[in-house]
Each structure stands twice: as C-alpha cells, then as structure tokens.
C-alpha cells in the first residue's frame, strides 16, 4: 500500500521501519560511497578518537531513513528535498546482530501540488541518532 494525496493529512503516520545494521553493511557502504574513513570499520581507530567503537556512516543512516519514506510513497523519485542533522552516532558492534535503527515518520505539513513534508524520528538503542530529519515528497 502506498500513500495517495487524497488520504494524507497532517499527522498521518508512516509505517514503522526497522533495519538491522551490521559491520558488513558498513564495509559495503564504504565501498559503494567511497567513504573509507576508518572510524566506520576499525575499532582501533574509532576508540583512538574517543568513540565507543565503530560507528555507521551518518550518510548510511540517512540513506536507510530515506527508505522509510520511499517505501511509503512507492516512488524514490518523489523524494524532492531531504535534510538531517547527525545528532548521535550509531554504534555498530562486531557481532552478527549489529545495531537496530528504527525510523518513524509523520506528515508535518501538507504543501501545494501534492507535496507533503514528512518529519522523521530515527533512533538506535533508544537514542535519537538523527535530528531535524525532514523530507519533502511528491505524492502521485
């Protein structure tokens, strides 16, 4: 089921979206994005700069959160504006479970021409990891 402009009002909630993030995901994202900063794959380097351990790329978390929106609209091309602040890092342990990232979204405004603003709440381990996370989407 995807969102249609007729059904969407301020306060409409997106289906909750939960993703598990493992070290393998970070290695794959490093290769695909070209961001090889070792804080995303080396505990030695991550802890040497004061982090609790390897953390996910902020841009990876941002990309995962976008999927909550595009899964709802059914149209990746409809995400016309998208912004986040990287609040807290997503710490990804070196095990098979990894970290869980939960994305919740709610329509914050109905704009003109079939566009809506979606306000996202993105958490991991009960802590908000992205703040001021907003997407403007074109509904079909």
């Amino acid at each position: 089921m995807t969102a249609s402009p007729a059904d969407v009002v301020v306060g409409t909630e997106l289906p909750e979206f939960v993703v598990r993030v493992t070290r393998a995901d970070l290695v794959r994202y490093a290769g695909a994005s070209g961001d090889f900063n070792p804080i995303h794959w080396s505990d030695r380097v991550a802890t040497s700069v004061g982090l609790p351990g390897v953390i996910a790329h902020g841009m990876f978390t941002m990309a995962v959160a976008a999927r909550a929106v595009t899964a709802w609209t059914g149209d990746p091309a409809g995400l016309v504006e998208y912004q986040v602040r990287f609040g807290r890092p997503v710490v990804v342990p070196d095990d098979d479970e990894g970290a869980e990232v939960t994305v919740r979204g709610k329509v914050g405004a109905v704009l003109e021409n079939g566009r809506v603003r979606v306000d996202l709440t993105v958490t991991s381990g009960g802590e908000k990891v992205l703040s001021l996370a907003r997407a403007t989407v074109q509904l079909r």
Partner: protein
Amino acid sequence: MVLDRELVGRSYPPSAVYEVGRAKIAEFAAAVGATDAVHRDPDAARAAGHPHVIAPPTFAIVVSLEAAFVVLGDPEVGLDYSRVVHGEQKFAHHRPIHAGDRLVATTTIDAVRSVAGNDLLTARVELTTEGGEAVCTTVSMLVARGEGGGAA
C-alpha cells in the same frame, strides 16, 4: 581557530565531469538496501518516466561530498581535516540523477560560524549536467571539533 567570515560566498572552480554509471547506481542501491526496480532495471525506470535507471535519493553525496572537501584543501580556510565531522546534510533534487548523467559540481561556502569552540562551515554544492541543467543542490555542514568539542 575561528573561521574568517570573509570566506562566506567564496566559490571554487567546477569539478571534473563525473559520469554516472548504471553499475555504480546498482552498487549504491544494494549498499543502502534500496530494492526498487527503478534503480536496477532500465525497462522499469523507463516505464516510470525516466530516461534510464535512477539513483537513490542520497546518491548525490558520492559526487558532492568530495566536491565539498575542496574547501578543506583551501589553505585560507585552514580547517584541521582530522577533526572534521559531518554535522548536517541536505539535498534538494531538481530531478532524479540517472545513469548516463555527466555531472559537474560547483562548491560555494554558504556560512561559517563558531559554536562552543567548534568551527562550523556550510558548503553548498550545485550539481549540474555538463550542459548546465540543474540536477541537485546539496548542502553539507562540516564541523571542525575544537579541543573538548562535543559534536560526533
């Protein structure tokens, strides 16, 4: 150190052309778990009205973050690269990026400020085609952590 406000408005020369490949889009889509057919299947993309497979919404960062980093290489900016973290990111898509696009990135410093001992620099990157068609505007706020600075 404190960034010089005179830097606001400074623009850098356009980047070399980045040609968007179909395989790169598929690789990026797989890495972020974007399973929509429009990222992989040219027929599905065309059926949805696109000239070729389209990139996921944050793919522009592959081109734009490196472009934004020209700022860090500017000796007059003088940010300590080892202390720089990504503070905020924004994308405004003028149209989806698709395979075959030949993109040029032009970087401008939009803002500088200091907060709690951290230097904050906002770099805007305009991604256009070689022909000048606007494709995506990305805005990256970079944080150079001061000693004891809190951003992560």
